[in-house]
Structure formats: C-alpha cells, structure tokens
C-alpha cells in the first residue's frame, strides 16, 4: 500500500501533461473576441488623411472589414497586398491605425496603396483596448447592422479568407441586400 502511494505524484503529472499536450493542438489565431456578436464599440477618433473626427456613424450600412494595422508591424507589410486585392474586389475595409505615428502611416499608404475607405487613428490604443486587440494585424468582420461577426488575429491571407471569412462574408452580403 505504501509503495503504491509513491506513484500518486507520477500519475498526477501524467494527467497534467496530457492536458498540456492537448493544449499544443489549439489554434493560436482562433481567439474568439468577447465582442463577437456584439456591436462595434463606440468611439470618437481622428481620421488619418483628413481633418475630421470619425465615429461609428461613419461606418457605411454595409458589411465591412475593420483591419488593425501599424507601420511598426512587420506582418502588416505582408498582409497589405491582400488588403489591396480585397479592396479591388469591392470589399469595404476600414483601417484602424493602431499606436502609430501619423506621418509614417500616411507615407505607408502613399507607398503601398490605400485599400481603406478611411482610417481611424488610435494613437493611444483606446479603441484597440475596447476591442480587445492583442496586437497588429487583426481583422474584424462587421455586418451591416454594425455587429462584430468574426475576428482574425494575425495576417489575413488568401487561405484564411477562403477558410474563415469568405462564406460568412457572402452570406452577410446576401442578407444585407
């Protein structure tokens, strides 16, 4: 009996490591936002290219993507061509320029093309905080009623678009018509 008791720690450890191992298989980019299914947070922040204050009122009553980006974010460089391509296909994209320097951000858009309807400047990260942004890039799919429907942490590329966004996007597009 006594000797069997000595095995207890080992058994506990094996159970624990099974959980840790299962944890490995979880997909990092699938972070369901606490806000999925809720309205886009209220904000009032400046526009990147024009002298005006933006709010949720400025969102078109259509399905839109909100893309969080910054010039300091290396992955955003990789993502940018994909956004240009989506914009060319007629997808509405709103930029959220996250904790960035305005001048550099403006230059970025000149150099790489501007896929965005407009860009919200969130220099302090306050809107990012309300959204629960973990970093850049991140992309949110917002329906015509202004409700967040999908979130992507990390680069949005063709594969992710086909897998996680396209169906939902087409469906929401159909609903709003």
């Amino acid at each position, binding site marked *: 009996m*006594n*000797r069997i*008791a*000595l*095995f207890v*720690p*080992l058994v506990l*450890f*094996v159970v*624990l*490591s099974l*959980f*840790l*191992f*299962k*944890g*490995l*298989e*979880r*997909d*990092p*980019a699938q*972070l*369901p936002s606490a806000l999925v299914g809720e309205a886009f947070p209220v904000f009032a922040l400046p526009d990147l290219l024009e002298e005006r204050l933006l709010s949720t009122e400025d969102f078109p009553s259509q399905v839109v993507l909100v893309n969080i980006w*910054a*010039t*300091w974010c290396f992955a955003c460089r990789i993502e940018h061509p994909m956004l240009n391509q989506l914009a060319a296909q007629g997808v509405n994209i709103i930029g959220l320029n996250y*904790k*960035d*320097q305005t001048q*550099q951000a403006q230059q970025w858009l000149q150099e790489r093309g501007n896929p965005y309807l407009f860009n919200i400047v969130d220099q*302090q990260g*306050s809107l990012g905080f309300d959204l629960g942004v973990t970093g850049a890039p991140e992309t949110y799919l917002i329906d015509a009623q202004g409700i967040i429907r999908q979130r992507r942490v990390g680069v949005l590329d063709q594969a992710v678009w086909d897998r996680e966004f396209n169906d939902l996007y087409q469906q929401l597009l159909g609903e709003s018509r």
Partner: protein
Amino acid sequence: MIAEFGHAALIIALCLALVQAVVPMLGSFVGQRSWMRLGYSLAVGQFLFVAVSFACLAAAFLADDFTLKYVAQNSNTELPSYYKISAVWGAHEGSLLLWALILAGWSAAVALFSRALPLPMGGRVLSVLGAISVGFGLFLLFTSNPFARLLPVALLQGADLNPLLQDFGLIVHPPILYMGYVGFAVPFAFAIAALIGGQFDAAWARWSRPWINLAWMFLTLGITLGSWWAYYELGWGGWWFWDPVENASLMPWLVGTALMHSIAATEKRGVFRSWTLLLAIFAFSLSLLGTFLVRSGVLTSVHAFAADPQRGVFILIFLAIVIGGSLMLFALRGPAMQKVLAYSGWSRELMLLTNNVLLVSAMTMILVGTLYPLIADVLELGKISVGPPYFNFFFVPLVIGLLVAVGIAVTTRWRKTEGRLLLQKGALPLVISLLCALVAPLFLGADRSFSSYSAGAALSVFLALWVLATITSDLKDKIGTDLTRVAKFSRSYLGMQLAHTGLAVCVLGVGLSVAYDESRELRMQPGDSAQIASYQFQFVGIDRIPGPNFIAHRAEVRVLQQDRLVTSLFPEKRNYNAGGQVMTEAAIDPSLARDLYVSLGEPLGGNTWAISLQVKPFVRCIWLGGLMIALGGLLAAMDRRYRRQTRVVSAAKGTAL
C-alpha cells in the same frame, strides 16, 4: 566572427555537458573513481565555455551587430550601453542562454565547494546537473539559437529593446530570479542522486540544505525585485497582479519554502523523508514549468505556445523526461512512508507539517488557478480566465493560518511540547498583539476615528505583532540575563528569526497598504489641485523633454502637507523613437510610512491631462520584508556546520546501490 566563436563555445559546452552527464554516472555504478572524479573538472570547463558564449553574445550587442537576428530584434544603436548588456537577456533566446550560464555556474559551484561529498554522491549530483545542461544546450542550439544570422538582409538599425525592459530593475531582476529558479536544480540533483543511491539520511539532508537556502534566497530576492519593478515601472501603483508570470515564480518559492522546513525535520529527526524528496523534485519542476511554459506562453494563453510548435514540443518532451523520469524514479525507489510515532501533540514536527500543508495547498491552489483556463479550453468549457478574486479568496486565509503557525512553532520543541508550556509562553505575546491590533487602526485611519476603522488593518497588525512578539519572547528566553549568549546563536537560528521577522514586516506592508491606500484618477490642467489623504497635489505644468532614445512629456506636480512643500514630483509619458511605443514613468516620493505616487495618463486635449494620484501607506514594508526574508535565507545558508567536513559520515553508504 565573434558570434561564430560564441556559437562554437556553446557547442563545445554541450559536448562537455554530455560527457559530464554520462561518465560520472556510469563510473558510480562500475566503481571507477577516476570516471566519477571527471565530473568535477567537466562542470568547471562547461561553465567556462558557456561563459565565453555569453560574453560573445554580449559583445555582439555592444558592437551593434545587426546581422544577428536576435541583436537586430532586441537592440538599437541609440540604446545606452548598459541596456545593450541587459538586452542580452531581454527576449527568449538570450534569456535561455542566461539560464544555461547560471545552471553551469551552479554546477561549477557544486564541483568546487562540495569536495567533501562522498565521491559516488558528488559524481551522481554532477551527472544529473550535466543532464539538465544537455537538455538546455539542445534546446538552445536547435530551436532558439541566439547566434542565428539575419543574412543577407543586414539592417542598419535594430528594432530596439522593449521600452518596458529599459530599466534598472530589468538589468538585475532576471539574473537574480534565474539564480533562484536554476538554483533549485542543485537540491533536485541531490534528491535524484539520493534516490539512485538509496541514501536519505541526515548527512544527505545536511549536504543539500545550504544549496536549498541559497537558491531560495535568490528566488525571494528575485520576486521582491520583480514586485518592486512592477510597482514603479508599470505605472498603476500595483505590486502584485496574480498574472501567470508572477504565479510561475511564486509556486517554486512556496514549494521551496516548504522544502526548507521539511528538510530541517529530515535532518534533525529523520522524518518526512519521502516528502522532502518529493518537494525537492517539485521545486525544480515548478521552476522549469515557470520559465519554460510562461516564456512560451502556454500559461498566459495556450496560443503563443502553438505559434511555435517546434519549441513547444521540445519543451514538453524535456519536461516529461525531467519531471516524469524523476517521479518515476521516486515511485520505484523512494523510501516507503514511515509510520512515525516519534512525535506527538504539539511538537515542532507537527508545526513543520502544518507549514508544509499550508504552503503546498497555497501552491496547488495557484497551480489550479493558473492552469484552469488551459484545462477548461482543452475540455471545451470555453475560454476562461481566473482573476485576482479567486487567488485572494484562497491565498489570504492560508497565509493567515501560516502566520499563526509561525508564532506557535517558534515556541515548540522537537518530539513533544507540553500544551501548558505553549500556553505559558504564548499568552503574553497573544495578549499584547491582540490589544495593539485592536487599537492601532484608530490611529492609522485618515481621520483617526471609528468611522475609518479597518478590520483588515487590525488583522494584519495582529498577525505581524504576533509573529514579532513570539520571536522576541523566544530571543528573551534564550538570552536570559547573559547578553554574551547572542554571539553563540547559530547562523541558522538567526537566519530563521530574521526571515520570520521579514515575513511579519511584509504582511504589515501588504495589510496596511491595502487598507489605507487612497488613489484618484483626475482630469487636471496646470493650476489645478487635489486633496488626497492629508496631502495636497498641485499640477504645476507640463514640458516636452528629449531623452537618449525617446521624447517625453514631463509634468510637474507639487505635493504640500498643511501648506508646507513636501516634494515636487515629475511623472513622464515617453514616446520611444524606434518602436513608437508609449511608456508611463511614474514619479514616486518614497518613505517607510507612505509612498506618494503620481503617474501621467492620457492627454485630454489642450493642456489637460488624466493624472493618477495615490498615497500608499507602508507599501515599502512589503519589499523591506522581502529583503529581510532573503537575508535570513543567506544567513542560514552560511551556518558553520555546513562547512564542517562531512566526508566521514556514511561515506560507505553512498557507494551502495
């Protein structure tokens, strides 16, 4: 070129570690004394090569060698040179190299200072340490090589060190914390050697004790520094957040504390042997879990871990071998639980057992809280996070129990203590601390009246005074009328009393700063003032000031008490050039009785700013207590009897298989 030297040195160190892991262990089984002795020189050699490797990486940082990926990601030409050095361990790869360096350092220390150990025991200890080094070496070289080149794209400018880490606290905090984490590898190696050799006697306990004390001292210091750093650098005035990183350091500390106490009973009375072995294994396992899993992010969120599955899988295999292997060894060879009737009633053994139960419960509850989100996620219960309320709910009662026990334990004797004696010795301290605790809040509150009476403050004053009073009464009994007896006190006894005093001071700091903390978030423009506790804060104005690699907004806030100027504080908001990150630098006027804490929030347009003003009574006591605890550990480790020759003791037993 320097980087290649560093890389080569690391490979050589790995080869030496491999030999160190295998040869002395084999030697101990076949009885080849020269093989066993090889471990000693190999440990020192391995340390030298890791040190060379580390120096090479530091040199690459100083030379702004941005062809190295790791340097390019974590340094910048504008960075002051002392931060370039600390940037060496500012991220994953470098901090692992620091780990390896410290592990090699501890191994070398064992090799140099444990000559008195019987050869089979010493050889096996060094073998186990060598095996851990091999694991780290492989991990470094194959998944996290800091010497990887970023060719052909050489950068002109690095990405800069995370501004949060550009701070004095971060120069000293990680190395000291790692000294603690890695230090537990030594008692772990002693435990494994004991399990292999089947020797769990008093001599074995005495050999491992000073190493446990030293590792524990560094860990205490590391946690204290970390808490202090979080307090002044993060800018919210909090000193403990129950975040997974902190929990990861607290868990090995709690188990290490339990280990220190349990091994005392093992050495003196031969009890709790299997328990002590298990704690030694757990302390190091939790250290590994702490550094590895937190760094890899598996505890913060499962997510960062899977982001780099190669590292993740390696880590899990390594953990499985080290922890699983040692627990398997424990299960097969551990000493069967003794039915001990050697102590009864109110004995010191019982109090040490109480201490162990409370500390291990606290650790388990933190482990559960930290891992629960992960387990819930795997079981598809949804993504949950466990917050401070959970931790406080369980941790506070356990600590209260612990402090009550500390006071009683000081008075108890080994084997058996008469209940009458306890009552006789404990009555006066109990009455004094109770009375003082009931009255003290009347004088500590803001308006010195019943309306501001705080039960929490009363409780913490009681617990702290109870511990202090019992310590004083014990000292008084031991000294009696002859003051020269103080000189005869052993360093372990003094260390224990100092550490317990530190615990009381720390509890006082926590209790009073929580009970009487006053803070306010205000919207202020120059000329505005606000009254907090008995202090008047005046916002004088704000300037833009350039720093070496940032531009700061610096506010001036004058603090007055009854129209007398106490101090002028200059909190800053810094914009770092390289990453565009914004950092809050709080301004603090420290003193033992209270801290004045001002931090700058967001600009609200024009000259208006959000400003956080805080008065934190006795908050310094938290870290003062931490320092005293650490010093107590150091004192105990320096006890003379650990340095006595122990060769004679059961040298024969060590050779037995």
